[in-house]
């Protein structure tokens, strides 16, 4: 399972990097989304995937799952959602003001 996840993370990062390098603003945002999903998945996988019950006292189970990465990945997901929504609004506004979503035309000149 860990190997499958590693391959998945690799694919996410590859696609994310490819998208980041394109000229369209919307694709760049999709790229950052994929990258943060990859990073979240990595954080989740790095603790090792094991089957087990929730770590509560007195449940008397054979194996327990590590709760820490789950709590952390939840926080990280919330943060990346928030940032992505902000980025989308920002990109929309930039598109409205500049009338373009081509990053080559958003470069800006030296003297302004």
């Amino acid at each position, binding site marked *: 399972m860990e190997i499958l996840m590693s391959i998945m993370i690799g694919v996410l990062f590859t696609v994310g990097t490819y998208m980041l390098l394109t000229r369209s603003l919307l694709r760049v945002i999709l790229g950052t989304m994929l990258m943060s999903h990859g990073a979240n998945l990595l954080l989740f996988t*790095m603790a090792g995937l094991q089957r087990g019950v929730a770590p509560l006292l007195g449940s008397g189970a054979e194996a327990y799952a590590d709760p820490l990465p789950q709590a952390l990945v939840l926080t990280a997901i919330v943060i990346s959602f928030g940032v992505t929504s902000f980025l989308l609004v920002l990109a929309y506004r930039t598109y409205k003001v500049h009338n373009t979503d081509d990053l080559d035309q958003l470069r800006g000149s030296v003297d302004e």
Partner: protein
Amino acid sequence: MNNIVILPILIPFIIGAILILFAKKHTVQRVISGVTAIGMLVISIYLAIYVYQNGITTLELGNWSAPFGIVLVADMFATLMLVLSSIVGVVCLFFAYQTISSEREKYYFYPFYFFLLTGVNGAFLTGDLFNLFVFFEVMLISSYVLIVMGGTKYQLRESVKYVVINVFASALFIIAIAYIYAVTGTFNMAHIAERVAELEQTGILNVIAVLLFIVFAMKGALFPLYFWLPRSYYGPPAAIAALFGGLLTKVGIYAIIRSFTLIFIHDPTFTHKGIIATIAGLTMFFGVLGAVSQFDFKRILSYHIISQVGYMVMGLGIYTRLAIAGAIFYIAHHIIVKSALFLFAGATQRITGTTDLKQMGGLLKTHPYLAWMFLIGALSLAGIPPLSGFFSKFPIILSGFEEGQYVISGVALLVGLLTLFSMIKIFNYAFWGEPKHTEEQANFPVGKLLLPIVPLVALTIILGFAAEPVFQYSLQIADQIMDPSIYIESVLKE
């Protein structure tokens, strides 16, 4: 255990939330935010004195003991940074009263101002790597809003790049944290330091160290990763630019110094003397070259942030007691002087209506106080003796020569010279020569604008003339952070 440790995080957070309710009422917002900012300054100074007298103070949130729960750690370095951030917070706020447009005030300037301070203070105080990430994000999201506030064409365009770069850096940060958890099985920085000491820093830990260094270097604008800074700091008004220029990059530097004096200390020839020192030299050099090439008040200052961040990292790269103390003194000096200079840029922009140096001139005749105070700040930044810039650069360069790092020390001296050159260029173009501004601009009353800057200029003079006690304090901080066992023991209480 002391609950006062959480106040610098809790107060701006709660007040920021309350201020949202009063978004359309200017006076109420101003009164509340002014009182809060001064209150935070008092609390952080009290905390600094308390930590100075009683040693490292920790707060275990919810009484979960250290490696299991979240801890806040106030050591001398963190409290010094808290005091500095509060000073800049007060000063920029009072400058914003004079300069910020009422449109911006309506659109939640003050709440995000305090959320930014929440993130910055949190990043200084936290003793937990994942919380560092969370507080970085709190700080960054507020900075996104503040940097784009106003929504001009230029701001929108540059903000997109700023946000995308930082989102990418955050993804890298999560990756680094994930690796650390895989290797050490903990997020508590003291606990990580302990485990890393047991593991010996080889292979994988060097990779993590470099990855974390890249993340923090991106926030701190170090050599190859500084390209976003000059453009994005040019957009927002002076009060916000001063806050960013003073604080944001320094949070990255704080995180670098913290992690490379606490966790990754077992292979200094590779990390400190190899990577960090080289990057520091390149940062200083290319930053100052950028400053020399520019003809715009704010842009020159933005490039100077880059070159001076190099000095702080150079202190870490040399990695002796004296150099670290110098770096800490330099951070204090830089936060104060850089914010002051950005506010000067705002004041001159307010008078002349431009930041282009070629369109200014002769402000010395019409606004002498502004000009002479600017000169003090400029000379201090360049490191002219009786001011604080000299006494903070001197120990860094001295220990560079002592350690035989001749190249980087030579670069540091050259960069000092070029800094002086570009600051004098500002003075020449903006203040010297024939007046280029109109009669109306010449009579512009500047007193109110100068009032918030006076404390900063006074502080750089005081730091210069009282260099001895300040440097003793920096040496004590250096002693504390050069010996990680003090930090580890006070967090884990073994």
